[in-house]
């Protein structure tokens, strides 16, 4: 998401101005719910009394349940950017390349990668895995700035840059240290294995982790005495993203980050869709019906993208694994690109109308 210009004037205190309400926004859009869940998954099974609850949470990643969890939250979230792209008022007209040409480009690119998977496949896969933590960090930053703006917290350009650096710190850490992505993809193994590189990476990782977790809190504290303080959800968004990527083992990080990022994304995208269409529908459909329709579209497209499309490549002679993994990679990258366009908050954008309307009209929470 792109940052919003800080022009709003209403202050909403430390809680900030919410889209739905403090509990919903902090738990699901701020992804605060992920912290106790991950704590339960990681440490809960050994704690007396809460073992069953912890095991229940961990069972979300069980093979029997995972496909449903993935479809309902993860696949649907990736599909949501495409559904939003084509349902956002005026998007086809204002983004003709993204809406009309980009899908063909991606289909062609995906097909070519499946065709020459021996050489290109692994690079497509590595690109998606490298881009993912950046995308999540950028979303955390975008949401944090949006909440500051909505809450009347006038963060200056310098603070915004600092907030962006803090948001991207987990990505930089993952880029530098996670096996198979980022540096380990781009840099030859011999160069990576060099002692100075190894010691530099070993030294920088804890520093970045510290910056990722403490930095947002420090910025929050710096703004606390101002008339319009930074809403607490802003540092929460950044810290939670840092916990996902830096506290969990790499594979778990991808699973849980994708899960909670998906919920976060679905929550905000449904809110924007409903608010945009409330006005356009002229009361023909209620907010719940709008949200339900939007989600149903995402669900159907998610199933089509991740479950049906790979089978077409299998039919064409590719292996199931390559088809599946390369479709996942291509859909992810398409999602990252599309997000760069559909969440812009420029003066002429429909997003701006949603944010501005709330900021201007809503009373302090």
């Amino acid at each position, binding site marked *: 998401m792109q940052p919003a210009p800080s022009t709003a004037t209403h202050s909403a205190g430390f809680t900030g101005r919410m889209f739905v309400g403090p509990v919903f926004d902090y738990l699901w859009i701020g992804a605060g719910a992920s912290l106790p869940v991950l704590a339960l998954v990681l440490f809960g099974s050994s704690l007396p009394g809460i073992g069953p609850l912890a095991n229940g949470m961990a069972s979300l990643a069980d093979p029997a349940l995972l496909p449903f969890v993935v479809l309902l939250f993860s*696949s649907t979230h990736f599909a949501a950017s495409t559904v939003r792209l084509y349902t956002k008022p005026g998007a086809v007209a*204002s983004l003709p*390349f993204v809406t009309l040409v980009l899908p063909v480009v991606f289909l062609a690119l995906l097909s070519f990668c499946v065709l020459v*998977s021996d050489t290109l496949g692994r690079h497509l896969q590595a690109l998606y895995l490298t881009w993912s933590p950046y995308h999540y960090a950028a979303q955390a930053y975008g949401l944090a700035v949006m909440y500051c703006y909505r809450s009347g917290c006038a963060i200056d350009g310098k603070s915004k840059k600092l907030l962006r650096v803090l948001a991207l710190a987990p990505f930089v850490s993952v880029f530098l240290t996670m096996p198979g992505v980022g540096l380990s993809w781009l840099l030859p193994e011999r160069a990576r294995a060099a002692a100075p590189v190894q010691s530099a990476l070993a030294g920088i990782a804890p520093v970045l982790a510290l910056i990722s977790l403490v930095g947002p809190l420090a910025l929050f504290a710096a703004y606390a005495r101002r008339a319009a303080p930074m809403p607490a959800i802003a540092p929460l968004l950044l810290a939670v993203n840092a916990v996902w990527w830096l506290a969990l083992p790499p594979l778990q990080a991808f699973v849980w980050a994708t899960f909670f990022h998906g919920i976060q994304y679905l929550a905000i995208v449904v809110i924007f869709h409903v608010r945009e269409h409330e006005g356009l529908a002229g009361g023909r459909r209620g907010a719940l019906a709008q949200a339900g329709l939007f989600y149903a579209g995402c669900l159907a497209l998610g199933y089509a993208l991740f479950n049906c*499309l790979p089978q077409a*490549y299998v039919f064409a002679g590719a292996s199931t694994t390559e088809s599946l993994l390369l479709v996942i990679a291509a859909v992810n990258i398409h999602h990252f690109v599309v997000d760069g366009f559909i969440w812009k908050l420029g003066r002429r954008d429909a997003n701006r109308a949603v944010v501005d309307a709330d900021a201007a009209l809503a009373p302090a929470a």
Partner: protein
Amino acid sequence: MPRWRRPPDPRHRLNTSDPRSAPRWYAVLGAVGAALFVGAVALGFLYSLRATGRPPSLSIDPRELARGMVQQGDLEQVLAEQDAELRLDPGPRQRFELYIRSGRLLSRLGRSDEATSRFRRAIAEDPARVEPRIFLVAELAAQGHYEEVIPEYREIVARAPGDAVLQANFAYALERIGDTQGAMDAYMRAGAMDPNLPQASFGLGRLLLSAGRPAEALAPLERAAALQPELAGSHALLGRALRELGQNDRAIASYQRALALEPRLNGVRVALSHLLAESGRPAEAEQELRDALARRPSDPVLLNNLAWMLATDPQPAAGDAEEAVALAERAVQLAGDAEDYDTLAAALAASGRFEDAHRAALRALNQARERGDLKGAEGIAARLRGYAEGRRHVERSARAGGGA
């Protein structure tokens, strides 16, 4: 929090730019892209329906899909899928797991060399982990490459020094390459790590017994039988140790327990029969042999032993001699060893055919001498002299033809 309702916002339309500004071919490409996408999705859906009878699976985890293929027995396809995943150059952890999983599949497919190669790659990927080394040694052991197994096992036990099972497996590998002392030491180490590990006691007892030290073997074998009362082999080996120590009644009880658990142990049945006959219970001895023969009617050892028992019985029943001849002739047909001719000679003598008995005994004597069995030859020669004098051979026990 106060509730509020926002009125429709006219600024929704601020973002609209002139659609005519986009080139016309954009729209054409958009239509082509949409058609291609819808077509591909429909194709994928229909293909899955045709291939599996179901809509596309909800799972997008290659490992889950591979599990389904394994259940259908399509191992070659699973292997192809794992190779495809490896081609995509996954991270080191997934690569490690893929090498192990594909190695195990190759092993199941009987492609041992490729399996060992995968396990070696997994070891190279993460030398600290013992799992691939365990799979590697299992594969090498299955191929009989025990010389290669030993250095791998040394690594394994060095990396998992407290693991009694691994130590016992290492001992077995040492046993297989003939390092008896090394194997005994390793079994003892395993037993010290886990006194309740049956393999350690059983292996140590077996080795001591084979080394002719039944008195030392007795305690570990008793322990193994107590720890694994359901394992026939433990009782059988204990029975053998007790027999060698002259504790016939206990040995008989152990053999009987072993046979109750695993009735197909014919060697144990022959040994039991021998012990019963030695203990003055010939009827039971004969019955054991008949039971065994009923299960394996073409076993030359069983045929020989029953024939010998019938032929050399001090008080034969009517028809015993003829049955003994028939049994001995079948044993000769099936194996034709010195013992079989010797038994045939005894049976022929019992039926009063001393000339035929003499010829058979001579053949037995020659065979025994040819193979250097001087003690056996001595016994046959003594019996041969008896046949020449028109005397049948009489004994109280069955021939020791088998053993536990």
